[in-house]
């Protein structure tokens, strides 16, 4: 499961729109491809990559644990 990352949230929102329009989701029960993940540093963002859609974005095979702070879990 790969991700696209960016420091510009709108780039990832555009990628989500690309997938939504390409896949033709019904807009009722399924409205988007994936929501955007915000890094705890507040300046990095990520979105799941769809196997069928590519973009000029940085691709990461996985997101490190720093993206998901464990102190949220108790």
């Amino acid at each position: 499961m790969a991700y696209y990352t960016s420091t510009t949230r709108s780039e990832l929102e555009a990628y989500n729109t690309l997938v939504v329009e390409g896949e033709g989701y019904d807009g009722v029960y399924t409205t988007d491809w994936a929501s955007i993940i915000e890094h705890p540093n507040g300046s990095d963002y990520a979105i799941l990559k769809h196997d069928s859609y590519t973009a000029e974005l940085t691709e990461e095979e996985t997101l490190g644990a720093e993206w998901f702070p464990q102190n949220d879990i108790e």
Partner: protein
Amino acid sequence: MGGGGIWAKYVNDFKARVIADGGTMESPSCAKTDVKFLVQNPEPVAFTGLLNDYSGAAAAYSLRLLDNTYTGDAIVVRRASDNTTQAIGFVNNELDTTSLESFCSGTDGFVTTWYDQSGNDYNVTQASASFQPKIVSSGSTIRTNSKPTIEFNGTSTYLFNANNLVDDATSAFITTAFSTTRSALQYVLEMPRDTGGSRGFDIRTTSSTNILSGLLTENPTQSTNAQGTFSNASGNLNLVMASFDEAIATNNHQIFGNGSLVGQTTNNGTDIHNKNTGINLGIFSDDARNGYLLGTISEAFVYKSNQLANRSGIETNINDYYSIY
């Protein structure tokens, strides 16, 4: 009287009952036809679901019919081939897998909505395609213990309802039938404290040999863990329940696994904390996106009341259907 054998006995018995009641009977040959029809076509025994026997659930999710007055569907499914969706209901009180597999037609099917059968319309949903759990794989219904189930991938999938569910409840009882093959901290049913926050009341695994229920109460704020040893990662279904009742002085927070008490503790707070959020199935927090379940969930129930007196009956109902232990 025409005929003989067993029908003669039935008709004679019937005639005796009619006369004893002060009535009269039509000709025995006609009575034989009527009695034979009634014996061979008994009125079907009315279906009684878990929620008919144990009413009052705040939310109830299953892939079998739980209430004989529920007329809605079980789920809404998106098929991978063209992303169209279809609601799937029940046939003979079970998920209509014939319609489900026909709709998915050799491809994968994902759950967008799991309907609440409690009557409270507290459905759990997932509108993001990549976060939707799976119910059909390459055209075949996913099953655990031979019954349909919903598969969570351990990395991105979950279902939720963001509206308050048990906030300020003074007692609650939650139950899940789930499976996993992973030894890890993972959340089966979580009603968080707050949006993106910590536990409110939940059921989770912490390893392949431990289950835990987290609870956060107010007045005073107190966090407790009811936990204990319970082998859970065989891939077969586990039946896990958790209970809290502030009116009980000691050991008022308990967790049960496959019909046995696994752990208990005392929480001295009052009122469960579940503000500004609701329920997550298969994840800890949708904001923080962690604690994903790798496994399946077949049923989940929430009562905003003490159900310890009904616990054994609820366990038996679920276990009889799923053959868990």
